Each structure stands twice: as structure tokens, then as C-alpha cells.
């Protein structure tokens, strides 16, 4: 670890291993815990992740995966279309050209639709994977998969695995922070399970900031630091039971204690310069909410938070990128909410020298179909066969386009990248070997990538 990031985190790491080794309790629960091997680490550039999650499944063919054939064959049937790919099987129509205009941008001449005028200026920093595919065409399972590897509930999320594997760089803040929609459009499907720790100890689960009111409640200390310190010291003495859950709980008091000073500082975007605020678009009503979250994310990774995940959009349908109805209106709205803040985040990270050590990921849980979902204002239905994800920074190779879909953007055909492969690659960029990052539970060594996953070497710088 010491070699890794120049941060003397080794103690932390070892003590955590020690902690895991000697404890065996659980939330009413007892599982035998062990880190199978310290061989999971290798040198890497990325120290933190900011995952910009476009909830609901953005359409690849309307964003970054330009398909001229859709214009040519607009209104024609999609050859070899397996209609069951869709969620609403009976509502599928003909091929539909993108309602958005595409143009080439940057030195790389990357195609980007006019949904993302700001992001288009940063394309040379992005590392696109156009051949991603997922297993489920349903939000719930697909969200489970993109977050935790399997399209089922109960497994640790990527963020939890990363914090488990790398520990935290700032003991005063949670290692894994999640921000969800603040406009009252709800949580993504599966809610907190999306950032849950599964069978990993509870300390590794994502901490989601409150979407109403102050981000973290009860953050203002009720007593002086000395007095609280004494309380927690007493608590530790009185709670030394050896039960795993109780140890985790005591640990959470330590973190909470330090969060009291660290968190307000991390959230204090008000102190940022006007230039920065304007850059993110905080003054613009349509994107202010996402801008604030992006800026907070930057402040958090600056302070050593390991993983930050931001959800754009809420529950489903019109509350998210789930453009079943009116893909044009839906994506225009959500791109409008995110384009400037995302681009600003990249710019800001870069000029602060943080992009190098921060892996920015952007994707949804699946893509959308190139055919129309029939309606007065046509939409596009779910499509797990193809979606585009992009990385930036964190040791990802900038300005490349990896993999490809067929001429309609219906199915990933070239250099296909599964969700497991994506996860393996993310872990690799973080310095973790996905095959060695394991946790023994119920007599089995579990991995984020289950028994799959291949690092996409092409996107690694």
C-alpha cells in the first residue's frame, strides 16, 4: 500500500485484516471473515472513484454511439430483432433515428450528440467503451448487476469492495459516499441495496447523503470534542465483546466522531470561488442540483473519500433516464441536468491535478433500443445488449473508443465488454486484482466478478 499511493495506509490495512481475522460476528449474524490474500494489490494511479450514474439507462445511440444507419433506415424494421430484449414487448416499433444531431469533437474526432455540448469539449480525455452489455432488461436486477456484479440482491457493491480492498485514505470521512436525486424523484430501484455491503462487514456499505435537508443529519457535535472523545473511549471499553457487529458499530462511532469536523468541510461548496461555481453551473436552475453534487464529489475525493457515486435521476420512467416515452424530451432534460456539471468536474479535477488519481466512470445500468417504443411521443425501451460507458482519468487511456455495436447500435458485437469485465477493469485501475480480491462467506470465496471478468487492457493507459 505504501508503495501504492505514497500514503502510509498499511497500518490501516493490516489492522483491518487483523480485525477481520479475529472477529466472526454479524448483524444477528456470524460469518467467518477472512481476506484470502494480500496478493490482490498492484501499483495503480487511481486512488478514488467518482461514478456518475445515469440512472434508468441512457440511450447509447442518442449520446455517444453514433449510428448513421438509423437515419438511413428510419422507420424500417430492425433485422433479427429479438423483441424480448425490450421490457414492453408489445410496444416496439421500427428503427428510429436519433432526435439529436451528432458531430465530431476534439482531436479524436469523437462523435457526440448535441445533448452534451459541454462534455463534447472534453472528449479527448474520455475513454469510451461502446460494447458494454448487461444481463437483465429490468431495472432492479440490472442495477444489482452494474453495482454488485450479479443481477440479484445480497452482494457487496463495487464501492464496498473497493473500500474493503483499499481501506480509506481519510478515516474522518466514510470511504464510500452516495448521493441520490435531491429533486424528490425518489431513490433508484433497489434503493440502499445498490450501495450495500452484502455479506461484507457493514462498515463497507455506502453512506448515502440525505436527499432532503442537510446532507448528513446530526453532524453538529452535541458536546465538546474532549467530552465526546472521552465518551467514545468509554464506549470502546464497555463494548469490547468480540461480536463482529458490535466491533463494527464501535468503529462507526469513531468515524462519526471524526466526520463531525471533516464532513462539513467536505460539503462546504459555498466557499468555492464564483468561477468554480459558475463552471459547474450552480447558478443554473436546470442543473444546479447535479452541479452541487459534482462539486461535493470533487471536494470529497480531494479529502480522500475512496468512492463517490452520484445518481442522476430518481426511481424510473420520466423521473430518470428511463425514456420509455418521449426519448427526445427525456434525454434533453436529463442531459441538461448533467452535461455542464460533468464536464466541469472533469475540467476541475484536471486543473487541480486530481484527474490522474481519480477514476471518473459514467454509465447507466443498460442501454436502450434503436427501435422506437411506440407512442405519441416515441421513446426507447431497455436494451441490455449494448450500452456505452466512459472512463476518464485514474489511469484510463484517454481519447480511445473501445468495442463497437452493430450498425444500428442494437447489440455489442466487437470486443464485447460484460459488466464483469467493466468491474474487473475498474478494480484493476484501482490497483486491485479482481480474481484475488475475495471474501470468504458461507464457505465460499466470493468476488465482485463472481467467476467471470476480464480486464479490458485496451482502456488502461
Amino acid at each position, binding site marked *: 500500500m505504501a508503495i501504492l499511493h505514497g500514503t502510509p495506509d498499511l497500518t490501516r490495512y493490516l489492522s483491518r485484516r487483523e480485525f477481520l481475522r479475529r472477529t*466472526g*460476528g*454479524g*448483524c*444477528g*449474524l*456470524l460469518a*467467518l471473515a477472512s481476506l484470502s490474500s494480500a496478493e490482490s494489490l498492484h501499483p495503480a494511479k487511481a486512488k478514488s472513484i467518482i461514478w456518475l450514474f445515469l440512472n434508468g439507462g441512457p440511450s447509447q445511440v442518442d449520446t455517444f454511439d453514433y449510428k448513421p444507419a438509423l437515419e438511413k433506415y428510419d422507420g424500417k424494421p430492425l433485422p433479427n430483432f429479438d423483441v*424480448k430484449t425490450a421490457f*414492453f*414487448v*408489445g*410496444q416496439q416499433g421500427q428503427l428510429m433515428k436519433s432526435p439529436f444531431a451528432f458531430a465530431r469533437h476534439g482531436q479524436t474526432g469523437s462523435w457526440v450528440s448535441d445533448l452534451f455540448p459541454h462534455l463534447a469539449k472534453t472528449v479527448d480525455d474520455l475513454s469510451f467503451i461502446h460494447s458494454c452489455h448487461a*444481463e*437483465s*432488461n429490468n431495472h432492479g436486477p440490472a442495477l444489482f448487476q452494474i453495482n454488485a456484479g450479479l*443481477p440479484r440482491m445480497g452482494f457487496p457493491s463495487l464501492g464496498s469492495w473497493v473500500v474493503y480492498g483499499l481501506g480509506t485514505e481519510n478515516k474522518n470521512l*466514510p470511504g464510500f459516499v452516495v448521493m441520490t436525486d435531491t429533486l*424528490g424523484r425518489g431513490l433508484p430501484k433497489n434503493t*440502499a*441495496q445498490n450501495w*450495500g455491503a452484502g455479506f461484507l462487514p*457493514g*462498515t463497507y*456499505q455506502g*453512506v448515502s447523503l*440525505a436527499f*432532503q435537508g442537510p446532507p*448528513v*443529519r*446530526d*453532524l*453538529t*457535535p*452535541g*458536546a465538546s470534542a474532549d467530552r*465526546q472523545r*472521552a*465518551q467514545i*473511549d*468509554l*464506549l470502546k*471499553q*464497555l*463494548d469490547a*465483546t*468480540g*461480536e463482529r*457487529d*458490535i466491533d463494527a*458499530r*464501535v468503529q*462507526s*462511532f469513531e*468515524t*462519526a*466522531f471524526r*466526520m*463531525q469536523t471533516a464532513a462539513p468541510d467536505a460539503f462546504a461548496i459555498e466557499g468555492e470561488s464564483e468561477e468554480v461555481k459558475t463552471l459547474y453551473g450552480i447558478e443554473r436552475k436546470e442543473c444546479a442540483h447535479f452541479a452541487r453534487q459534482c462539486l461535493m464529489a470533487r471536494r470529497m475525493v480531494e479529502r480522500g473519500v475512496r468512492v463517490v457515486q452520484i445518481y442522476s435521476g430518481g426511481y424510473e420512467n420520466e423521473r430518470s433516464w428511463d425514456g420509455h416515452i418521449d426519448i427526445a424530451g427525456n434525454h434533453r432534460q436529463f442531459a441538461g441536468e448533467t452535461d455542464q456539471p460533468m464536464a466541469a468536474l472533469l475540467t476541475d479535477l484536471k486543473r487541480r491535478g486530481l484527474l490522474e488519481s481519480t477514476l471518473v466512470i459514467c454509465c447507466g445500468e443498460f442501454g436502450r433500443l434503436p427501435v422506437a417504443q411506440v407512442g405519441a411521443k416515441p421513446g426507447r425501451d431497455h436494451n*441490455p445488449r449494448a450500452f456505452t460507458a466512459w472512463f476518464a482519468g485514474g489511469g484510463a487511456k484517454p481519447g480511445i473508443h473501445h468495442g463497437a455495436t452493430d450498425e444500428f447500435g442494437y447489440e455489442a458485437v466487437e470486443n464485447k465488454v460484460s459488466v464483469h469485465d467493466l468491474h474487473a477493469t475498474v478494480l484493476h485501475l484501482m490497483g486491485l486484482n479482481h480474481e484475488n480480491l475475495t471474501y470468504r462467506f458461507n464457505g465460499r470465496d466470493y468476488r465482485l466478478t463472481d467467476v467471470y471478468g476480464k480486464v479490458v487492457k485496451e482502456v488502461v493507459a
Partner: protein
Amino acid sequence: MMNSLTRSAILSLLLFVPDVCAGDAGTDFFENKIRPVLVEHCYSCHSTNAKTKAGLALDTKVGVLEGGDSGPALVPGKPSESLLLTAVKYAGETKMPPAGKLPDAVIADLEKWIAMGAPDPRVASKAITIDEARKRWAYQPLSGVGDRGSGVGKSVDEWINTRLAGKKLTLSPAADARTLVRRLYLDLLGLPPSPEQVVEFVNDTSPKAYEKLVDHLLANPQFGERWARHWLDVARFAESSGYEHDNDRPHAYQYRDFVIQAFNHDLPFDKFVQWQIAGDELAPNEPLALKATGFLAAGLMNGQVTEREVEKERYEVLDDWVGTIGTAFLGLTVGCARCHDHKFDPIRAEDYYRMAAHFTSAVRVNLNVPHDPPAAKRMIAEHQRHIASLEEGVRRFEDTKAHGPAEAWRASTPKLPVAPWLVMTADDTQKGKTRRGLESDFDLTPQPDGSYLFTRLNGDVGPIKLTTRTTLEKIAYLRIEALSDESLPNYGPGFGNHGNFNIDSVSLSITGTDGKAKSIKLEKAATTTDDKPGGHAWSVKANNLGHDQAAVFKLAEPIGNSDGAGITVTIHCPGDSPSARQTIGRFRLSLGLADTDASPTGIDLPLEVYERGIKELAGDELTPAVVKLYCLNDADWQRLDAAMRTAKRDWRWPAHDLAFGVTEGLPPYRMMIQGPDLSDTTHILKRGDPNKKEAVATPATLALLTRGASSRWNVAFVNDAKTSHRRAGLARWLTDAEQGAGSLVARVIVNRLWQHHFGRGIVATPSDFGMQGDAPTHPELLDALAVELVQSGWSLKAIHKRIVMSATYRQASERRPDAERIDPENTLLWRYPPRRLEAEAIRDSMLAVSGRLDARSLGTGTLDENMTRRSIYFTVKRSKLIPSMVALDWPEALTGIGRRTCTTVPPQALWAMNNSQVRKYAEALAGKLAGLTPNDAVTHGFELTVARPPTASERLAALKFLEPDPTARLVDFAHTLLMRSEFVTIR
């Protein structure tokens, strides 16, 4: 994805369906010769439990037949075409196993096996049918239910010990008395015992001491407050509608109170189930049964629905009902069959829609729940008789005594009496289109007193135009009476949440013989509701509900035409608003002339009678209408008439509550919805799409769980019933343990009880007993408890007692390294499983030990975090969930959940450290310790919070903490006691 789904579906079926060819020669060959080879040489890379390299799994029949990336592993009967054989012979590109070629004899066995047709007992080879599925443990009728009094064959402990012994494990020794008493209090009441209660139990040396305590706690009303909350999770209980508007449901708390009372009174669980589905049909005289229907009503409801969405929205409501009944009672994900036949369980889409069809006419309403329904019925009947007799008295006076004086009056030169209020009956009623241009769909039924009652309302209501023709002149006033009625929430006079209503505008126009309509400006002049004069709107709110009200509007100019004119009154009373329907329920319109005493409560006559009377006065006969006119000035008649009107005005409806529930035949609770609330039929939908209707769905119970004829459960239709009694039939099927779903329902509920007593159910997936759910760890025990439940007359308390009396429950919770090695998750229960308490129990414990608990039970809740009642009395508003409860894993109340997640995150610690309420509890707790020596304060603090004195080292640590300043540090010390893990742990 489909492939892997299908595969796992088939696999899961295999686990439970015995293969037909088990035991034959082929199977023997497989078991003796083939399986060992596969296990030893292949499974490490090709099995569903380890790896499936190249997509190949050889540990299932399906895996073998479907094969992997290169195609099927073998072709039964054709060794030469089987890749598996080529690979093991090292004859092709793929050479398996890679570590070295198998012995020739083994290869020969494999070849022979394939030639035999590859018999493989590991899987069933066909899709599951209902008949097959019924063989699954969960779907079988409980055996022995019919033999009442046979008792449970084995005790809880015997079943537990049998499984433990199988792993060479034993129960832990019994927990000590202090641990036990705290465990029981927390588990049964959700509150810790006081030090006095602890001492009382510890000092009770009688052999019955523990049982006495159990009985005592089960009889404590705080038991219901604890266990109701568990059920409310399952029932996705909340007191608002969710979605963007999240409108309040001010009477929804009645359902919460029903659950508390039902558990406290040990309402038989079959009734508990039935009432929640059809309490209004099965037990209309039981207030609790009416409140129980809040179970159905509790789900989400979109508050703003466009016309395009309105039908889909209705199917969403049906889905909520079917889905929640499935998970809550049946432990089945019936809702999965909405779009397609269930992928794992034998529930067809048709089953789903036919189950939904029981609810076709069911609607959410604010129900009147009289405190004593039979007495209320008698009281109302008595009142109606009383009014009828007074009316009869008036009529008799007019028919007899009035004749003489009336004749004399007529014979003289009669002076016309001052015109009373003249009650309009409509020659013509028109339903205007709604604000959004939709047709209004309602029945407005004229009543004997000239009023109009909405007897059916389906959707938004546009302006209602009532037109009457008259030759009267000098019409100067309009009176609207809003009348109470038994059919209205809170007895009216409106359909609002509280019986309120809101008339947006009332207008009046006159149409002369030329057919031209002229509208006349109106201005509110006087009301019984103390409104300010002015304007042309009127609403009745909080203080004026449940009895008759009236408002008088003055016309800008007197109107009328002796040649006849049409007077049209238009009332606009929209059916929707952001805060629920506010349509008026029953109303009566009267016109007043220039000389009319325009008091809202003035005397009245039918307009038609008054008009006729004036005409007939000119004739030679003493007609009834003329007598009426005379009577207006007769003191005796006035007395009789006034007595009648006073009796109506002073009538108070029976004492009652409003409860947000479900019934049929009443206008539904409604928000901003465009279009009808419901339709006459429920259809089977293709892929859940209301635009793809297939056949009409007739009500039917789930085929999987139906072993008798529907006539067994149908309830004979009652003639005067407002409801279809379809739900009653469904409810009776649900609780029929012999031929209906009752056996499964019994298993599911005893498993829930077990789960809350032990932290984990015998089936670990409490709301999924289907193919995807977990298998029971102790199937016989589960069945034994379910049988006992049915035999005990569905007494939940009997099962609670059975469980907590067991040695399994009473064992210690300490860790045992020897046992942990064998059963790390304690699935077999070698110790009592310690676990963190739920949000409510944590907060309630803090209130209790600090002496701040306000123990008042039942009634309306609050969103105020400063309240000091038990946490179950927090109002559950979906968009404003109580933050401290949410931090401690409160459910979101979107769909029912059987098991809460249990997280450990810093925000919980922040709450415990910094929350101002927690600090107040700490201060109050410190107050109890104040004045004691530091040593005694430590002892008492421990006794209060964890029911035991501190250990020596704990005492030492605590004293050291207090030492710098025992007084100043007392609150911090008390606060730390509340932060402690042991305090929030049941162990």
C-alpha cells in the same frame, strides 16, 4: 440473460421435484460410475457452485444437455456425437480434464453411460406443472390439521436438537435470569424491564416464574404496540399516498390501531387475515373489521393521473393489492405474474388477473366506523322513525284540523302569506363536462325531501345544472342546503376526507320564453357556517361537519316571468383537488322571493306546491296546496313544522371514527385524477398492458392452492348488500387450511413469528416461500407450529408462548468457538442469536430508561420528533419519513417487506451522539442517577439500561470516566450508556 435465468429456474425446480426414474438401473449406473467421476475430475471447473468454464456446468442435467460455449456436452444415446467423450478421449482440440487423461475404464463408463441415453437423476426434465408443484412442501396441506387436539408431536426443542445432533452440536446452557427477563421484555414488548421488574423475576424462585412472566407480558397492551410494527412492515403501512403529492391520509392510523388491538386481543389469525381483505363484508358490525380494510388501502396511490394513464393506474392499484396479499399472507410473489406466467412458481398470468378480479369494484374510502355499529343502526332507525312521526303529525294536521280554518281563510279575502323557501325539483338535470373536458359519470338520486344525493360517482364531476320552470316573479334568493347522510364520510355533508366539501362557484340564470338565457350575479348573503358575506363559493370545513348546513345567495336583481321561465342553478363542485375529493354529497336547492325571510334555516315548501296553491286559491275548492298555504300562518302548524325541522337540525349521528379503508359501492377517495376511478370489469392483460386486453377475468383463487370448489368459500349474496362479497370469498379461501391457501398462510405467519423471536425465520425469506425462496432449516418444526396454530383456533399468542417457552429460546447467547466452526451462521440455533434492535425498540428503550416515555396508546400520530410516545405513533408520511428512524433502517413503506435490512453506518452513531432528543433522554436518565454516589450511579445506570450490574472492569472504566467531575460528567455518562451496543442489542 434468458438462458441463465431459465437455467436457474430449472435448477431450482430440480431441487424439489423428485425425478421419476430415480432408483432404476440407469440411475444406479450414474450414481456408481458417473457422478463420482464428474465430481472428482470436472466439477472444480464446471459446476454451478464453483466455476462454469466455457459456460459449461456438469453438475446438473440441464447443464450437461445444454452444454457450454461449444454446444451440448453430449447427445444422449450417441457417444460419437458427444463432445464430452471426444474431450476425455483427448481426440480433439479440447482435451479434458487438462490435468491428465482419465483411465480407459472410466472413459468406457462414460461412453456406456451416453449410449444408455445418459440417465441422470439430478434433474427433472420437464417444466413444472401445478400438480408437480403441489408436491412441494410449502404447497401441501398441513397434515393432521383435522385431528383437533392431537397436539404437537414433538416439542420445538426436539426438532432443534435433532438437527443440532446431526452436526454433533448441542444447545447452549440456559441464559441467566437477568438476560432472560431483558430478552423477553425487549422481544415481547419492545421495551426493557425496569430494575424492579428485573428483581421481581430474579427473586421469583418458583418453577413457574418464567411462564408467569411470559403470560404477563403477552397480556400487556404494550405487546401489541411491539408486534403490530412487525406486521406494518409487511403491510407497507403508511399514512400518505406517496408519489409527488404524497397527500395525507388523516384516518389511515386506524389501521395501525386495528393491528395493535388485534394482536393484543389475540384476534384469531384467520379472522385477522379475513378482515383485512373483506372486513366490511364479513363482519360489518365489528368496528375493528372495518378498520382492518386499511390493509388494502395502505398502498401507494398516484395523486396526479392523466386520462391516458388512468386505466393503467387502476391496474397499479389492483397490482398493489394482489402483490401485497401474495407476499404478506401467502409468501408468494404473485405480482410477478402480472406480465407473464410466473417464471419460477406455477402462477399463471391468468391466475393473477383472476385474483385481481375479486377487487374490481373495491375502492378506497374514508369509512364511517361507528363505535357500536348495531347500536348505531338502531339509533339511526329510531331517528328516522321519529322524523317520520313528526312529518306524519304535520300531515295529519293539514288533513284534519287545518281544514276548518283553511276554508274560512280561503272564503275571506285571503292575504298571501310571506313566501317561504321554495324547494326546487329539477325538470331537467344536466351533467356538464369536467374541467378537463371529460364526461361526468355519476348518479344523482332525488330524495323524498327534494334533495339530491350522489349515489354513484366515478371520476371527476363537472358543473351540475338543475333547471326548474316557474311562473313566479320577484325571485330574489337562492338557498343551498348541504345535508348530512349516512353514506357520506363523517356523515357528510361532503365527500372530503372529513366529510367536508368545496363548491367552487354557484351561478344562476333565467331563460325566458324567447329561449335566451340571462345569467344573474349571485352574492353569498348568509350561512349557517359563519362565512363572511360575498362571493359565489361556499365550503364546509372542520367545525361544521356531520350535520345539515345552508347558505343563502342574494340575486343581483329579482327575476321571474309570469309567462313562465326556466331557472337554472349551476353548481360547480369539482371532484378533484390536490388534497382529495371535495364534492358535495347531498344538497337541496330553494328559491326565495323578495319578501321571503332569507334566513338560512327558514321554513320551506316545495316550489311546485306553492305555485299550485296560489293558482288554486282562485278556484272554488280547498285543495291540499291551498291548505299548505294557509298553514304557513297557522301557529299550531308552525309549531309542528318547527318541531320537525328542529329534530332534523339537532340530530347528531352516532359516535364514530373515520377509517381509511376499502369497501364497495361508495364513491372512492380521489385526488387529481382524470377519468373514471374504476371500471366494471377487470381484464386479463397481455404483458400487463391495459391496451392489450384479453378475456374478462372472472374471480378465481390461485389454482396452485385451490383444492376445493369455489362454492366452499363463496358467501351467499345478501340482497341489500352494497358490496359484491367477492373479497369475502377470497378471504375465506385464504384461511381454509384444508382445501384453500390456509396451510401456506399458517406456515408463513408462524415463520414470521419465529423470525422476530430469533432474528431469522425457519425459512429465511419470509415473504417468499416459492421456488426462489430459501428452503426451511427445520421443515418439520415449521409444519408443527403451523398445525398448532390452526388447531389452537389460530391463536398467535399460543405460538408465541410455544416458542418463547422452549429451551432453544431460553439458551444463552454467548459465542462458542467449537460451534462456530461447524455452523458459523448459527442456522441450527446452538445459541440464542444476539442482534441489534429495530429503530422503534431503540428509541422506545431510550424513552423508557430515561423515564420520559408517554405510554398513552392508540390514536392519531405525529411527525414531531419531539414526541415521547412509542415510535409506532410516528405518522408514516412517505415523503417525510422520520429521519432518526430512517437512519436506523426504517422501511420505506413502498412495498411490504418481511425482513428489514440492518446496517451499521456512521449516521447512526451521529444520531446517538448528537441528536437533541437523544441528549434529552440522556439528561433525563442522568436525572435518575443524580444524588447517588458515583459507584451507585454506575450500578443503577447499568441496571436501568442493560438489566444487570456492571462487571468489575466496566465499573472501573465508568468510575474513571466520572472521576474528574462526577456531577458534571453524569449526563455524558448516561449518554454513553444509551450509545452502548449492549443497550441496543437483544441477546
